């Protein structure tokens, strides 16, 4: 190995200066012809505008009147003058349920997001709870949490307060939400910086983002939010449980308690069934030699690089391992195949299996995702390939993800899981 002298090294450093740690993955996907989906208020809050039918729907049909500044002022007074916004929202995750595999009982998954936003410094502390359990807890800094760019609870909160302060929120109607009389306020529309309309199958541009907020007629506190994309409901309506401001001393802007980690594949290699026992730190699970009429075709040992993400890089990376079992196919995600991915739940390796922990023991998280991609001939992109069903569960010290192309198959494989 040779080394450059310090002078040449310094010259090279100056020759091409380092780039900022920034990235635009959405742009990559768009260039690849893959349709992207916006997020609003949570990881799995996929915009399904066509399915949303709430009482708020009537509100945006009403014409602007925007004359009752008194309502806006009182809503602003209810928010308060503190430098830190504290907002708690609740929503039912769409397309995801909690399933008892033994009884078949399914229940909706309720996600609560508690957010503290220091608007001046851009520090945001976000705690996401699913059915009461903390799923993520992150502290990060955002340059400008505008609603059109972030599609997050924090963005909504900042935009709502600013709209009230600037008189850019206008009353567009009255009604009831959960039995409470409310005013509907529409926030000033902003232009999106991403091609968001693709998520609803539209191609018009530019895209216009706004939101309607239901404000309690007695307390003038926000009680429900409905985001709008190009004037139509965008994503599910979100209950606003709390919206207030506080001093910095009274805010929870403490350093993050759980660190977001990511897993990167460092390569995979096929192994025989006899070698599986040495791969994970706990005994592996499988669905038998065949499941749903599909034989076990391949087993892969997945080498992982795991670490906390800081400034766009994986800091302090460690090595991890996961196991992939492929039924009825020889590569993950192949049409008609069933894939089982598992890793020790006590290790960060589990992040490769699922970004969030599994549900409580005995339960499984079931969700459906629409998959887009190129057609078989490669002549068309952005084609809907089908619906992939995913089960995530925790069992015997392992976090397990099962993927299949039908609900029946994914449940059959999840129910068949047992020690290898």
């Amino acid at each position, binding site marked *: *190995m*040779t*080394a*450059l*002298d310090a*002078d*040449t*090294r310094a*010259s*090279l450093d*100056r*020759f*091409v*200066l*380092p*780039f*900022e*740690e*920034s*990235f*635009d*993955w959405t*742009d*990559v*996907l*768009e*260039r*690849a*012809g*893959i349709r992207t989906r916006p997020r609003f208020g949570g990881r799995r809050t996929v915009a399904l505008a066509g399915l949303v039918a709430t009482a708020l729907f009537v509100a945006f049909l009403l014409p602007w009147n925007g004359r009752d500044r008194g309502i806006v002022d009182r809503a602003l007074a209810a928010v308060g003058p503190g430098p830190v916004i504290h907002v708690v929202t609740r929503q039912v995750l769409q397309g995801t349920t909690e399933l008892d595999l033994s009884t078949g009982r399914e229940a909706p998954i309720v996600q609560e997001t508690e957010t503290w936003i220091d608007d001046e410094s851009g520090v945001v502390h976000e705690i996401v709870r699913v059915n009461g359990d903390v799923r993520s807890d992150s502290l990060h800094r955002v340059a400008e949490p505008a609603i059109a760019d972030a599609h997050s609870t924090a963005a909504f909160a900042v935009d709502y307060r600013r709209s009230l302060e600037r008189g850019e929120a206008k009353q567009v109607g009255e009604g009831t939400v959960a039995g409470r009389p409310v005013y509907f306020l529409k926030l000033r529309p902003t232009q999106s910086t991403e091609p968001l309309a693709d998520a609803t199958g539209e191609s018009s541009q530019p895209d216009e983002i706004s939101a309607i907020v239901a404000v309690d007629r007695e307390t003038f506190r926000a009680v429900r939010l409905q985001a709008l994309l190009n004037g139509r409901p965008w994503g599910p309506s979100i209950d606003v449980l709390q919206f207030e401001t506080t001093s910095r001393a009274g805010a929870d802007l403490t350093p993050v308690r759980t660190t977001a980690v*990511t*897993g*990167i*594949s*460092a*390569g*995979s*290699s*096929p192994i025989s069934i006899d070698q599986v026992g040495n791969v994970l730190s706990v005994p592996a699970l499988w669905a038998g030699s065949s499941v749903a009429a599909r034989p076990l075709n391949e087993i*892969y040992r997945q080498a992982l690089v795991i670490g906390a*993400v800081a400034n*766009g*890089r*994986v800091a302090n990376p460690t090595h991890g391992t996961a196991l992939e079992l492929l039924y009825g196919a*020889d*590569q*993950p*995600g192949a049409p008609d195949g069933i894939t089982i991915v598992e890793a020790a739940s006590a290790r960060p390796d589990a992040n490769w299996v699922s970004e969030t922990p599994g549900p409580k023991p005995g339960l499984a998280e079931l969700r459906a995702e629409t998959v887009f991609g*190129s057609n078989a001939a490669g002549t068309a*992109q952005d084609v809907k390939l089908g619906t992939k069903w995913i089960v995530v569960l925790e069992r015997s010290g392992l976090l397990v993800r099962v993927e299949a192309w039908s609900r029946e198959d994914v449940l059959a494989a999840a129910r068949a899981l047992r020690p290898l």
Partner: protein
Amino acid sequence: MKQGAGLREIEGVYRARAAEFRRVAAAIVGDRERALDVVQEAFAAAVGRRSTFRGDAPLEAWLWRIVVNLARNDLRERRPMPPSTEETTNGAVEPHDARLAVALLSLTERQRLVVFLRHYADLDYRTIAETLDVSEGTVGATLNTAHRALRTALEEVTK
């Protein structure tokens, strides 16, 4: 070996190493703005071709190969001026050290690529070898030659 790379795997490498990919691309094409575009296009191409990833080399090396090839093609197609010792253009990589620009021009393309991948991306010999489709021994020898040539060229320029 596994066939195909996952979107999430590609995204992971992109998010972890975007700055380095851009820096190497900028060194090759000589323009920071074009480098941004080249890297975006390269990853879009990787996403589109992900099913062809054979898995017989690390995913990152496969991605580096795509980025480097696209940057080289971009350079050829656009036929830019080489880094100048006398002038800079708006948005171009500024030759902060004119001596180095001259010295780099004295290298072969392979030597330059090895230096860029080693210095700007901190890649090990194996990954450089897999990226450029040469042996590890060739990488070591090329890097040795390049370093020697750089030193010589720099000394000659300063005489």
